[in-house]
């Protein structure tokens, strides 16, 4: 059985000190940091040094697949597998295939973006996370700004607490994952 992870949580009333504190912690070499806010906070991506999001690349690939798939479907169904002769018009005519090719590209891309984000980029659905151990953490989706730092055995919790307090945190606490 694995050891339950411990997290240090700090709550801030406004976003700016939270971003500053996150930057400070990251620059001091701490890993396993995260920030939580009711809306996307300006500057937190740089503060946590998050890499560029891969969502656009994934979306672009999905769009190409949608175009290829949509066009191939129409070509194969209407001119190979079940060719309908309407007044001797050619069974394969690309202009009539454009609307559905476009729609299938949009559909594939939208589905990929949504489910790709939920399942892969966000790692949801996940109804349990150690940060939810703190009842106070409810404010993270309402009006407060939180930082979490994963703690190891060797960490100086007291020193970290003081640093965060000085950075303007109004609450600092330690939560332990329940296994």
């Amino acid at each position, binding site marked *: 059985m694995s050891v339950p992870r411990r997290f240090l949580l700090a709550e801030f009333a406004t976003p700016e000190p939270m971003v500053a504190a996150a930057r400070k912690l990251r620059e001091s070499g701490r890993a396993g940091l995260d920030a939580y806010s009711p809306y996307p906070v300006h500057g937190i991506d740089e503060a946590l040094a998050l890499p560029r999001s891969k969502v656009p690349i994934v979306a672009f690939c999905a769009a190409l697949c949608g175009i290829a798939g949509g066009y191939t479907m129409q070509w194969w*169904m209407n001119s190979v597998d079940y060719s309908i002769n*309407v007044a001797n018009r050619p069974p394969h005519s690309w202009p009539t295939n454009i609307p559905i090719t476009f*729609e299938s590209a949009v559909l594939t891309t939208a589905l990929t973006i949504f489910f790709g984000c939920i399942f892969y980029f966000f790692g949801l659905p996940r109804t349990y996370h150690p940060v939810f151990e703190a009842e106070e953490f409810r404010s993270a989706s309402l009006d407060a700004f939180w930082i979490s730092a994963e703690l190891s055995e060797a960490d100086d919790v007291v020193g970290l607490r003081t640093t965060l307090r000085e950075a303007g945190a109004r609450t600092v606490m330690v939560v332990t994952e329940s296994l």
Partner: protein
Amino acid sequence: MGNNIPVGWAFGIINFVWWIGIGHAGTLISAILLLFQQKWRTSINRFAEAMTLFAVMQAGIFPVLHTGRPWFALYWLFPYPSTNRIWPQFKSPLMWDVFAVSTYFITSFLFWYLGLIPDLASLRDSSTGRWQRRIYGIFAFGWRGSARHWHHYKIAYLLLAGLATPLVLSVHTIVSFDFAVSILPGWHTTIFPPYFVAGAVFSGFAMVVTLLVPARRFMNLKSLVTIRHLEAMCKIMLVTGLIVAYGYALEHFVAWYSGNKYEYFVFANRRGIFVGNERAAANSPYMPIFWLMVFCNCILPNIFWFRFGRTNVYVMWASAILINVGMWCERFVIVVTSLHRDFLPSSWAIYKPTWVDLTLFAGTICFFGTLFLLFLKFIPAVAVSEVKELRHEIEHEHHTGILPPGSQEVIHETEMEGAKP
């Protein structure tokens, strides 16, 4: 139903086009205004997107009923390997429509739901009942507002908006192809795609205003949905209304200028006056509907030139309802008057809706209303997290003094209005 030869497309198609057009304002508000960074959209986008979804649901009912045998529609329309071993005919605009509308519904739903996730999480965290917390918790998927998630979320939301923008233009364009690709006078015209899109936005904004004016009053949203929002919507109705009026004028002009006898006859029959030599057209049974359409869609929106029309909610609400009526009449005029005078005078007929047509239509209005009330009851009608973000931005700009001129007065007015009982 009252459909018969020669009027084979009546209420089924009129109501389909009407409902799907209403849906377009939601996507316009949520996606196009997002891309143009029109931040005022924040307090109405959730509302308008919900309207889109519910309107598209109503629209989807009609083509299925229109096929007559809905169980056949499944293998006519969806490319799945059925035991009959046949595939749909993709060269038919009907098929394009199926793909356009279903893609539109799915994409709008995903866009709406992605925007809703942070708000569902905040409902989970602010509600006190055990079951409320659980249910909202399930629908929020365990969203915790992590910066690592927001990082992807922002770009995903923007990309979905970017996808929805050409999509919304394509949907009504494809709906108009159902008519324009045929070779029937009154339908076979190249102006249809832009004119349908403008009409869709026009009717959609009218429906948003129809719903928003009572909702902001009874739900006490006056500090979020201000008169400024309503004014902006009135201006969009004015612009799109004028485009629609131009479309009507051009249709009649081209019918005359083309020198095509059949084309001229259809439009003379629609308007009933200035019919020239076409004496037969003087017998125009649907003339009142045509002129009601002209009044509601071309004359009435001009009230929004005046500040009085844009700020008085009663005037605005009454006009919006009449615009919805006018846009319904437009679809009636397009569908029925192009068909009822067939090429053979012996098959001329008058279309009258039966009680089945009327009750089905009334039923969809009630279904739409029910869904809307359920939405208002259970789901945040305003995009809460986006409003919080906007509020923070405004306050930030307020402190640093980079607010554009006039904004302080607006903020003050808004606060005063919100403070009213």
